[in-house]
């Protein structure tokens, strides 16, 4: 009876609800079964972000959270330092020597004097 009412008023069918729920629960199940995938994902994520900012690798947290209709990955990545942004490179000119290159950013702690 209630199913009929749901269909008449355009609600999702129980089978489409089931399909969606299964899709999400299997994602969670698969993640639970593969902790090494999560570790690899975490490591790769840190590597990529580290190209842009300096992060505290030991304090990085990666969690998966279920909301009702989606699985979300939440990453908490503490940023230790962000280098001063450098101006965009000059477009190359036809004649004359190439413009002198600016000092390159280095994402490391070797130079505490330049850390911001």
């Amino acid at each position, binding site marked *: *009876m*209630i*199913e009929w009412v749901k269909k008449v008023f355009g609600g999702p069918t*129980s*089978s489409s*609800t*089931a399909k969606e*729920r299964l899709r*999400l*629960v299997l994602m*969670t*199940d698969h993640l*639970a*079964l593969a902790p090494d995938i999560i570790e690899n994902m975490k490591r790769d994520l840190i590597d990529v972000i580290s190209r842009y900012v300096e992060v505290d690798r030991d304090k990085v947290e990666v969690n998966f959270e*279920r*909301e*009702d209709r989606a699985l979300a990955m939440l990453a908490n990545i503490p940023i230790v330092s962000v280098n001063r942004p450098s101006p965009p490179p000059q477009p190359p000119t036809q004649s004359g020597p190439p413009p002198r290159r600016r000092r390159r950013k280095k994402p490391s702690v070797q130079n505490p004097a330049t850390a911001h």
Partner: protein
Amino acid sequence: MHQHILRQAQDDSGVEIAPAPKLGRAIVVTSGKGGVGKTTTTANLGTALAQRGARVALIDADVGLRNLDIVLGLESRVKYHLLDVLEDKVTLDEALVRDKHSETLVLLAAAQSREKDEVDTEKMRALVQGLRERYDYVLIDCPAGIELGFKNAIVGADEAIVVCTPEVSAVRDVDRVVGLLGNRFKPQLIINRLRPQLVKKGKMLSVEDVNAILRLPLLGVIADEPEIIITTNRGEPLALRHDGETASAYHAIAARVAGEDVPAPSPEFKESLMDKLGSIFGGKRA
């Protein structure tokens, strides 16, 4: 895991202190054969008891193949599971999931990525005992089979409900399980997925047939309804409703479990009622 200590009714000098809180009942729902409706029964009976105001804790003991969460529609809320609690990684309260629909119902989910042999039997017993001190009913959803999963599921329980379908293999398996349950339990029987039309045609065992073989006190009889599939699709147990044959059957079972004197389902009574319903609704099959 929190350890509650039962207070003694009297201290040593004989002066009465507050009486010990009444210990809840721990009931394992088992069958031997898989697919007969243990999880569905646990979910619906638990819901029906909670709807009556009882405090109910459900434990999914099917480590590695958990399904009680999905039948209740709680799969998105499960964060921690049975083994996390048994291994003291989290407290019981952190792991218990409150039901979406029934206020006084909680679930302790099974672990999906672990194996049944990782469950410590003694810790399982202590866990159930601990839950009994806080809840009126602790229902344990037993896995199929008679291996370690089964043994761990029954360890904390003091009552058993066996679920059987009217099929030869199911009856045979229940018979074996009853033997394994031993003298500690006086199991009660639920016959599930009865199809009155088929019984009438002699193509399915009747309630009488099953009971003649098993000879267990009959707790209830539930007919096979497509509604069960639909409600599982949605994660909304049928016992949330109060209309319909199956919902009513679960409510009657809950009442009996609670000790009420609901007219016991005499096989003849159930058969004739089912007959009438069967013919009214036509019983179309694939």
